[in-house]
């Protein structure tokens, strides 16, 4: 009876577009947090979980249980989720929450299934307490797509231990009862892989999902410049706290959980050239191994925890340890830090500047952003991002930006190395004025600009700069107009905050990258390359382009960021796709297989699949010696290995 109801249909569309970015689980807009999620913990009680549940009940994947009543009743329709989600993805999860309430109200008693407590659940509840272990299919189903493969059944337990000791007992219990298990933190890596062939490789087919969200310890030590964080702490939580003490952590995107991130890719950020990667980032770890043994990296008795297997067969699909607590390094924030943005038309010039600066040890954060990333990050809607990118490419001839955060003296050095930069006032104008910029797509101004010999110079250092900034009409009020009417006042206040145009703050807190996952999915490929192999780097980018074109995907370079004094660079190349489109998924599957294999055929590269779950180790063990292109014979083996992981087509 609810089918055909337009509000309902709209809710289904919203729920399907949800991409599990996790931005509703930490307070990045000073709205406070979803009260229901905060109280009950399980993903099912957070906006992203409700969207997944709605999708599941509507598709018939799961039948209602009485827990669904608690889940809907616990939502007060306070609207926090709409504000958070709209900033990142432009979705309105509250409409889904309302539809879910309506759906539950329409049910009869006979519509609910009853799932009794079984022996395993009883055993797990004895460890963590009755509230923190469940086999309820509705709650289980909220974890689909972010750790449970969409193709798997619902034969799972969800367990939320409060600390390392409880986790250890859960694992020991799992082993004795032969139940597979997998930890979950933010779940972003798994959600990016979930719709693709990689879901079988990364996900859990049955058993125990260990949700680590309750481990919320967060302590800053201003004497040792360290922070101790539990596995439930996100990058944003840590950075916000560190910032209060004029300190900064090296973190991944805002929603990444620090401990999970350390155990998966390692903390890989644009700040890596100064602050390091992998084991550089932490002082000590507390962890639990797959037998339930607790250890600390500082224990003298443990075997070397920093070395790892080298070579193309080193693929790991799960973390070697579950990190429950990490003591990470913090770094001082200086008053004179600024951003330098240098625009480029071609990649070679951008690489030269970025790597030269990195090798000279200049700057804190150093990255080459593609025009795609620049447009996606800054633009508040996908349409504005599309038009923004078009303008960057066609009229401005701005394809790359070397984006460096440095101190005042270093800024002068960089400015002396280049002809012009994009200054602070223009950057502010671009952030607040991007909706207006998008409207200039076919304007006379842009046509005149494109006829300039060097449009970038004319725009950022010439007489057009002032007119350009004025034309953008960049105010918090104007950017807020692109939002739904009821959210405009809120976003006017958000964009009025100085931090929303403070490039250094934005680089530290990384709230923009989630926009890459708005309403559709992307799969990041790439890896690490030795910068001495610059021609190979260009060949590598071309390879991804060719593969993307061949499989008819939207594809683009994301970023290149040097680290270890410019010895290496991490490169991300993205394939974008609609995660609800089965054909698009098949194209991504083929692109993954092909680009992974091709990456190993080029000297000097460690592909993404080869550094997943290597973040606990020393980068020197991961990256040295220089990887050489594999032989034909090894290529065959790798292909077989990939087909085993990913499945023969």
């Amino acid at each position, binding site marked *: 009876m609810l089918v055909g109801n337009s509000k309902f249909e709209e809710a289904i569309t919203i729920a399907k577009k949800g991409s599990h970015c996790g931005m509703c689980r930490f307070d990045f807009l000073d709205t406070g947090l979803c009260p229901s999620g905060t109280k009950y913990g399980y993903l099912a009680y957070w906006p992203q979980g409700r969207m997944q549940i709605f999708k599941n009940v509507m598709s018939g994947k799961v039948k209602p249980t009485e827990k669904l009543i608690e889940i809907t009743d616990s939502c007060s329709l306070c609207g926090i989720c709409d504000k958070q989600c709209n900033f990142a993805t432009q979705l309105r999860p509250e409409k889904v929450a309302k539809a879910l309430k309506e759906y539950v109200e329409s049910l009869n008693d006979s519509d609910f299934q009853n799932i009794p407590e079984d022996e395993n659940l009883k055993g797990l509840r004895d460890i963590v307490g009755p509230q923190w272990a469940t086999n309820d299919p509705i709650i289980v189903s909220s974890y689909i797509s972010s750790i449970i493969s969409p193709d798997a059944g619902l034969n799972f337990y969800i367990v939320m231990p409060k600390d390392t000791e409880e986790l250890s007992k859960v694992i020991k219990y799992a*082993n004795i009862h032969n139940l597979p298990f997998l930890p979950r933190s933010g779940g972003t890596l798994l959600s990016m892989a979930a719709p693709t062939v990689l879901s079988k490789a990364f996900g859990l087919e049955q058993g125990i999902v260990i949700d680590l969200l309750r481990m919320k310890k967060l302590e800053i030590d201003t004497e040792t410049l360290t922070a101790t964080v539990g596995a439930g702490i996100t990058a944003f939580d840590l950075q916000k706290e560190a910032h209060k003490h004029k300190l900064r952590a090296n973190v991944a995107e805002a929603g990444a959980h620090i401990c999970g991130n350390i155990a998966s890719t390692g903390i890989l950020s644009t700040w890596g050239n100064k602050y390091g990667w992998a084991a550089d980032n932490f002082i000590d770890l507390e962890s639990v191994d797959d037998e339930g043994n607790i250890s600390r990296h500082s224990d003298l008795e443990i075997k070397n925890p920093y070395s790892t297997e080298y070579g193309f067969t080193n693929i790991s699909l799960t973390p070697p340890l579950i990190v429950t607590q990490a003591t990470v390094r913090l770094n001082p924030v200086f008053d004179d830090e600024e951003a330098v943005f240098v625009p480029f038309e071609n990649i070679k010039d951008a690489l030269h500047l970025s790597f030269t600066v990195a090798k000279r040890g200049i700057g804190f954060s150093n990255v080459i952003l593609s025009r795609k990333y620049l447009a996606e990050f800054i633009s508040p809607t996908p349409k504005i991002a599309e038009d923004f990118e078009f303008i960057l490419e066609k009229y401005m001839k701005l394809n790359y930006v070397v984006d460096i955060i440095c101190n005042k003296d270093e800024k002068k050095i960089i400015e002396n190395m280049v002809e012009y930069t994009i200054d602070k006032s223009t950057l502010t104008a671009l952030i607040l004025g991007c909706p207006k910029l998008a409207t200039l797509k076919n304007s006379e101004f842009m046509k005149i600009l494109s006829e300039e010999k060097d449009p970038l110079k004319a725009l950022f250092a010439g007489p057009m700069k002032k007119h350009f900034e004025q034309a953008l009409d960049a105010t918090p009020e104007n950017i807020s107009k692109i939002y739904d009417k009821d959210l405009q006042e809120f976003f006017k206040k958000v964009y009025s905050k100085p931090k929303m145009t403070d490039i250094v703050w934005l680089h530290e807190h990384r709230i923009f990258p989630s926009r890459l996952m708005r309403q559709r999915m992307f799969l990041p490929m790439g890896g690490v390359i030795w910068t001495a192999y610059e021609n190979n780097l260009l060949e590598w980018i071309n390879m991804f382009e060719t593969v993307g074109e061949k499989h008819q995907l939207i594809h683009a370079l994301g970023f290149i960021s040097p680290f270890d004094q410019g010895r290496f660079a991490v490169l991300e190349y993205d394939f974008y796709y609609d995660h609800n489109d089965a054909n698009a998924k098949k194209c991504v599957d083929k692109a993954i297989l092909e680009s992974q294999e091709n990456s190993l055929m080029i000297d000097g590269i460690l592909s993404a699949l080869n550094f997943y779950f290597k973040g606990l180790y020393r980068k020197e063990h991961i990256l040295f010696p220089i990887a050489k292109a594999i032989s034909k014979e090894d290529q065959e*083996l790798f292909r*077989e290995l990939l087909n*085993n992981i990913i499945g023969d087509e």
Partner: protein
Amino acid sequence: MVKFLSEEWLEQCKRYMHEKLDPEKDLKNVTTSLLGVVEHIPPENSTMNFYLNIDNGKLTDFTVSSGDSYEKEAEFVIMGSYGTFRGILKGETNMTIALLKNRLKLQGNKIKALRLMKPLDGVIASLREVTDEFEE
């Protein structure tokens, strides 16, 4: 059909492999030895191991013993829980994925082991054919 790791299981596996597996076609004439250590066996949470030796594609030795110490030295040792081996033998779990997910731990040359995965598929298929009873 018999119970995994029982004497009957061992005998039937041997017979099946001798009768049904072609040394060249199925086992690619490989020469290797493998010790499988099965941990967390219900209901006592015990450990057992099985050892097999293949010479030029022919099974020359196949034994099962209990405990976590073993007399025979093998080119490869794979250790995993009873649940993992059960999943492999039921065809629910892919052996390579189990290895990469760290559910099976390998001692020995990994590249060589991965090259053996295809020939070993034949052995796994044999074990699957004769095994249908597990501890739950």
